[in-house]
């Protein structure tokens, strides 16, 4: 038998064992700092990158992103987006090591989920075309890896 989750109730404190309240440390922070992302990131794939550069700008606890596409399979200019959610590595807090951001390119919307791993910025892109009904293209997923620019 499954536990009753009470999904809409605020008195529910956890729905995973790892989220139990008694595990909270004293250093838990509500707004992880995104400073680890600051700078320019270059795609590790020099042959066929979809996104060539990512530029991260940090102001306080706000992270802004600018993406540069290859200009062929992906548009060159993606404009600027602000990270909608910054996440630490655990409920105990610490610096932000991941984020979610959304881009609206008109003909498609892209949800990006990123995380830092071994010095790399790993970004998963979920592309949703806005021309539902034409049926000629599928929404698609891509995942790219970026290293810090030497000048960053």
């Amino acid at each position, binding site marked *: 038998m499954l536990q009753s989750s009470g999904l809409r109730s605020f008195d529910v*404190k956890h729905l*995973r*064992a790892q989220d139990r309240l008694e595990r909270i440390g004293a250093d838990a922070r509500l707004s992880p700092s995104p400073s680890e992302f600051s700078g320019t990131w270059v795609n590790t794939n020099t042959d066929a990158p979809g996104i060539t550069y990512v530029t991260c700008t940090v102001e306080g606890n706000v992270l802004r992103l600018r993406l540069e596409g290859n200009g062929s399979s992906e548009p060159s200019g993606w404009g600027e987006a602000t990270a909608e959610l910054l996440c*630490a*590595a655990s*409920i105990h807090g610490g610096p932000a090591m991941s984020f979610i951001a959304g881009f609206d390119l008109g003909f498609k*919307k892209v949800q990006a989920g990123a995380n830092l791993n071994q010095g790399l910025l790993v970004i998963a892109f979920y592309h949703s075309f806005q021309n539902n009904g034409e049926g000629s293209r*599928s929404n698609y997923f891509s995942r790219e890896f970026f290293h810090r620019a030497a000048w960053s």
Partner: protein
Amino acid sequence: MSNPRSGESTSTAVTIERTLDLSALLGDWRNTNDAATGIARLLLTQAGDQIFARIFGAGHPDPFDWGEAPAEVFAEIPESMQPTSFTFYYDLGFMSVWLQTYLAKGVLVVVSFTRFQDSSGRSNYFGKEFFFRSQNPVAVK
């Protein structure tokens, strides 16, 4: 950004093409780590032209059933009709969770972005877990 919310009208679910081959994704996915404290199990089912994800959080003595959430599927390239990833979203009141997935060599990688919306002091956090597809028929109720 698409934020389908659990429990809302199914009209918020993204309509999928009937010609998409979902066979690689549909089913009962179990965490590769028996001692996982995050997501123990994930079901992906199809109802008509929509698909739904359902999470079971690790818990004792029984797992926590998060209920169903509409999911959006993605192929590897725009020309493909075989989705290899999907995303979905839960707003559970005290927390909301964005989930992004992708298949890699038969393993379903599930990445979660959790935002706590209560006053518990828990930090928003990132998680990554790995799942294999169970050979057992999907049966929940």
